[in-house]
């Protein structure tokens, strides 16, 4: 099972570029089936003010990170000047590690951010609604939520 994450965050792009790649709930709902049509077995998307991330898993050929970046840029207006390196890619174990660090609040601009967990949960909810989240993504994201919850209860990451 291959897993690919493509996204934009405050680490890779300034606010003006991230704003243009923010997806509303309805836009996420219409993006998910398009990703499935490109060959993704399962996919989840979440979008906040500081990041938009797409997680895609497949057993055979997957769309590939460049195709995923293209589709993100094509679906939003006024993105032609956003450079490719404003979007990051990670795959395999690195993508999993990244998701866990995002869910734990480690990767947030305000470390220990409590909102991100609910925002990721919302992304999974849309994917379940559109039938693009199956066994693998459910298991992966539930583990990420568990890691996020443990980070907040067992460490002082969320304390001011």
């Amino acid at each position, binding site marked *: 099972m291959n897993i690919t994450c493509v996204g934009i965050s*405050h*680490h890779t792009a*300034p*606010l003006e570029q991230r704003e243009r790649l923010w997806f509303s709930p309805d836009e996420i709902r219409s993006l998910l089936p398009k990703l499935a049509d490109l060959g993704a077995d399962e996919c989840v998307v979440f979008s906040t003010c500081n990041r938009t991330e797409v997680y895609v898993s497949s057993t055979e050929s997957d769309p590939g990170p460049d195709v995923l970046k293209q589709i993100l840029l094509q679906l939003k207006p006024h993105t032609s000047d956003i450079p490719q390196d404003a979007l990051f890619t990670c795959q395999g174990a690195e993508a999993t590690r990244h998701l866990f660090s995002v869910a734990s609040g480690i990767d947030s*601009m*305000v*470390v*220990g*951010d*409590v909102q991100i967990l609910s925002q990721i949960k919302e992304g999974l909810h849309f994917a379940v609604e559109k039938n693009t989240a199956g066994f693998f993504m459910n298991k992966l994201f539930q583990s990420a939520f568990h890691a996020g919850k443990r980070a907040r209860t067992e460490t002082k990451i*969320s*304390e*001011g």
Partner: protein
Amino acid sequence: MVCLHLVYLTARTIAFNHPPVTTVFEILTVVAFSVALAYLVIEMISRAKETGYFIINIAFFFQLLSSLFIRDLLEVPEILRSNLFGLHVSAALLGYAAITISAVYGFLYLMLYHQIKATNFGAIYQKLPNLEVLEKMSFSAFKMAFVLLGVAIIVGLVWLPRAFESFSYSDPKLVGTITIWLLYGLGIYAKTRGDWKGRKVMVIAVLGFCITIMSMMVINVFFSGFHNFT
């Protein structure tokens, strides 16, 4: 207002035949001008206008002190009439003003950061721009400080050996300023490389200001050198 202040400083220079940097209260009016000018440049770069209130109050405070206590000195040591001296001091004061502004924005960033972390979305959260804008403004001032202090050091090193027979490269103020300049250069290098970002850079901006103030106080109180004109 900045233009009017510049006219005032120019008029003072012409009237008294020396740049207004020969007494503490003359320097304060130049500092007030420097803070306002530095803020204006940063506001133009970042296009964020919400924080002017904090900065202009600082400039106002300095100008108020200057206006209350400034004296009009016609007789000053000849050395203080030099244009290079005026350039050296102006660049240094602008540099220190930029250090102050960088620290103010760094402090505002840290306050807002802790408010967000505590999910306390009160008056500070409502009034301030977002963390990214505050960081951008602080770092713009950080870079300005580095460039301006660099100019002050270079002009000083060119002018001082000609002006002072007793010139020494181990002058405490010179050493102190070069040390601060190198610290800010290191900060810019680390941020540009990506090693430092966000909260870490803002802490450096505030600490840099504290180190600058403390070192100046220590140097002025405990050491003497050719920077002492009294």
